């Protein structure tokens, strides 16, 4: 990057330094999706909305792409700065601006770590419900961009169900407000449209979130099954009985071995699968529901059940689940995390097909996933030093996603499309579907400077050769949109 631009950037974000040395860029060349790498040209750390605006305007002045980045825990390459763009690192904007317990809301900056919000309101009896496994490090802003989920989303919903309003810096530096502290804002639901737009519609600088009262009681149950099939049918049985637990998670044998090796929680190494079931809510009726769940598990061949007796034991049961990804890291130098979703009733079939894929490509696959909502997380184990194996990992990944789509599912449940899966989008969406998405992005981000190259495959960049959207927007539509935006600028 030219020196005078760096100086201008440094002037905006002072006293924070602007990073640009090649060795400093290594940290930012990828996020949690490590197969794709692209070093940015500079990393800047704004502390205020005004600084974000100034940085975005500067990027526009020089025609430089930019991308906002939270903690870099994303798993689809969403925070990569393609084409030598600027990384706008939001971690300095990490304050809780307002907590309103009476109305069960908080206003926070995007760089706030997810768990820090729940910790801040815990003593008052509240929490923030979306709980991605990375919640100890991922940020609320990143969660908004990716519409992140977590184990408890089965009952409580994902990020979009808990975000009420946003302050956003658009790609030209204009500041707009979506939604607000009150519900049912008239007009199009731009809050809902923005959440999950993966940083391609603008940079969020303030988030109004819903806080929930902590459940009065929990009941955490761990059940072991001889096979994934048996465990899956128990999961279907529980939901079919009209019980929606707070969480309903599954691990297969390989994952159990990894977790047990890492944390010695006393898991039976020979179990084909384990299911972690957590009831939460009011204490009334919870014992009865737990008893029904135990009976359903027994009916489906459960080999053993453990019920947490206290908070410490509950934490231990969860520790295995929350740290499972890390534990799998003990089994091989690298692993590739997938995130496909299938209808819950297709779980047994999906997992059988994953076993076939594992055999076909000669790769071990561990499964740790949200069984309740059919959100699979196959972890494909490999060694990145073996280029031949990396090739097979990519092929196996494609086969996994194809399987999900074949079974009536989708490409991603909570990790996003980003760079990683954008070329698979035509498997699910027609050119017309993608064109509408592209058009919307054009409205928010007409110069395509804001996180370019993500989510939608574009002509010329598309490895799979799909026909794509950008040239099919008719001149009439382009004119109408331009007129609307133009008129609006006069208006503001």
């Amino acid at each position: 990057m030219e020196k005078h631009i760096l100086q201008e950037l440094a002037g905006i974000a002072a006293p924070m330094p602007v990073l640009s040395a090649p060795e400093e860029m290594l940290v930012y060349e990828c996020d949690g999706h490590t197969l794709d790498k692209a070093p940015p040209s500079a990393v800047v750390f704004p502390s205020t909305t005004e600084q974000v605006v100034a940085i975005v305007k500067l990027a526009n002045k020089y025609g430089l792409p930019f991308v906002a980045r939270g903690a870099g825990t994303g798993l689809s390459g969403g925070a990569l700065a393609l084409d030598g763009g600027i990384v706008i690192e939001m971690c300095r904007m990490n304050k809780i601006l307002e907590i309103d317990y009476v109305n069960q809301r908080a206003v926070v900056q995007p760089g706030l770590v997810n768990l820090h919000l729940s910790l801040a309101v815990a003593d008052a009896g509240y929490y923030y419900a979306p709980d991605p496994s990375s919640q100890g490090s991922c940020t609320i802003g990143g969660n908004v961009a990716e519409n992140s989920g977590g184990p408890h989303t089965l009952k409580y919903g994902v990020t979009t169900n808990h975000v009420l309003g946003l302050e956003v810096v658009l790609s030209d530096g204009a500041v707009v407000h979506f939604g607000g502290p009150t519900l049912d804002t008239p007009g199009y639901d731009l809050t809902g449209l923005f959440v999950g737009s993966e940083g391609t519609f603008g940079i969020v600088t303030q988030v109004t979130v819903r806080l929930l009262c902590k459940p009065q009681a929990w009941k955490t149950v761990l059940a072991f099954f001889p096979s994934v099939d048996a465990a899956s049918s128990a999961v279907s049985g529980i939901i079919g009985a009209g019980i929606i637990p707070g969480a309903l998670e599954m691990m297969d044998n390989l994952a159990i071995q990894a977790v047990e090796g890492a944390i010695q929680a006393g898991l039976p190494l020979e179990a084909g699968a384990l299911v972690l079931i957590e009831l939460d809510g009011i204490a009334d009726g919870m014992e009865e529901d737990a008893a029904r769940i135990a009976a359903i598990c027994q009916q489906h061949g459960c080999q053993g059940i453990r019920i947490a007796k206290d908070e410490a034991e509950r934490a231990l049961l969860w520790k295995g689940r929350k740290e499972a990804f890390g534990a799998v890291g003990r089994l091989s130098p690298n692993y590739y995390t997938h995130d496909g979703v299938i209808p819950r009733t297709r779980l047994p079939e999906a997992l059988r097909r994953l076993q076939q894929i594992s055999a076909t490509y000669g790769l071990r696959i561990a499964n740790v996933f949200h069984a309740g909502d059919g959100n699979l997380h196959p972890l494909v184990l490999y060694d990145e030093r073996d280029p031949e194996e990396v090739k097979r990992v990519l092929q196996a990944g494609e086969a996994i996603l194809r399987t999900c789509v074949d079974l009536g599912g989708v490409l991603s449940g909570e990790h996003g499309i980003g760079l990683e899966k954008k070329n698979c989008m035509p498997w699910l969406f027609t050119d017309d579907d993608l064109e509408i998405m592209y058009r919307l992005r054009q409205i928010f981000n007409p110069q395509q400077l804001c996180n370019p190259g993500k989510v939608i495959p574009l002509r010329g960049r598309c490895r799979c050769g799909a026909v794509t959207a950008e040239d099919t927007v008719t001149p009439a539509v382009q004119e109408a949109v331009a007129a609307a935006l133009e008129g609006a600028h006069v208006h503001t």
Partner: protein
Amino acid sequence: MSTLEGLATALASVVGSAHLLTNDAVAQYAIDGVLPAMVVLPTDESQIAAVLRLASEYQATVFPRGGGSHTFMGQTPSRVDLVLSVQHLQRQLAYEPADLTTTVQAGVRFCELQRTLGGHGQFLALDPPVTAATTLGGVVATNVSGPRRFLYGTARDVLLGVAVMTMDGKRTKAGGRVVKNVTGYDLNKLYIGSLGTLAIIVELTCKLHPLPPGELTLGIGCASQADLAPMLQTILQLPLRLNSLELLNATACETLAVHADLPLGETAYTLITRVEGTPAVTQSQAQRLTEALRHLPLTRPASVHTWSAVEQERLWSTLGELTRGASGPDAAPDCIVVKVSLLMSALPAFCQDVQENAAHFDTAWSIVAHAGSGIAYVCIPVPNPEAPDVERLLAYLQALEGCVTRCQGRRVIARAPVAVKQQCQVWGPPGDDFVLMRAIKASFDPQHRLNPGRFLGGL
């Protein structure tokens, strides 16, 4: 042959003359009294696509319609060329109870769908005020909601996937059939509540919930203004599985008592709340609630009543009607309904302010609020609905606007006589994000033919 006659001929060849209404047959499809030139009732998606292409070709305005139970929403149109009804698209395309999802065509009757799902012990967790004709497509397009939103949310919390037909006759989809999905931009949210201004919704996939094993409704009398805030706060913080928490002022309660033929107290306010669970669980929750209220230092003790199962059902269906403006869909509205969004904590002060203003005009306005969500419906009676005193009503609305502003809320005039609507911005003023909304509208409907001028800021 005029352009519209040409369009009629072309449409008849697409849908068959039996599914194209003209002349007198269009009367029941009037929008705020404006008669459409014609009404088309396509029976499948390809017909909808063809109708839209023809409408574009003949430069006709198109007004999408479900069951017509909420066409009173929005600004009055200046001219209605073509009403496009989806009421003949009513197939349930997929239903796998174990997945707790279903996919239906947009014209599926809301009540019929609930009956089908109920047969499997499930339901779609939306409970807006509906008629037998209300369609799911209409519920989503208008984003209407009811008391259960307190626990289950609104359309944005249950809609998983959607397919729409745009003005150029192209079918596009977003979302999927699974309960968790971040594959592509979340266009579901964009179509919800867009009042048919972007595209015609043709297919919907929704997340379902198991029916609760039982429910118990409690009416709690609140005799004094000062007690309202502490009572609400207490109830909201108790560990209960509440699915509804409604607040009624005395005027609303009186109307409810008459319409539902139920004995209701005559306190300043009444809270009507509903807990769910097995009978044992609902009983113990009711006890806990009653206990907690007894221990509150109130100026006057709270009274708690319960009703029989039949009475409970009547109570809830009548209560919904109050928020829709009680008279039937065709009748001139006998009240103005204003939907106000505000912070829950502002609700008690807002109620007091509204009632004082009503008293100042020597009238009584009813308030029905989803107290846990900060949504209040204020109903202002319209004497002589056939020939309303517009100036007087506008003065009422102006006074109400003051109450909304003082509580930092927002309001939508959900229902009002046409002569009143013509002098108001029914959706209120747009915000700084209107730039984007206008561009989105232009992108979907560059010629401004879909429900033109009816939505926020003329979208």
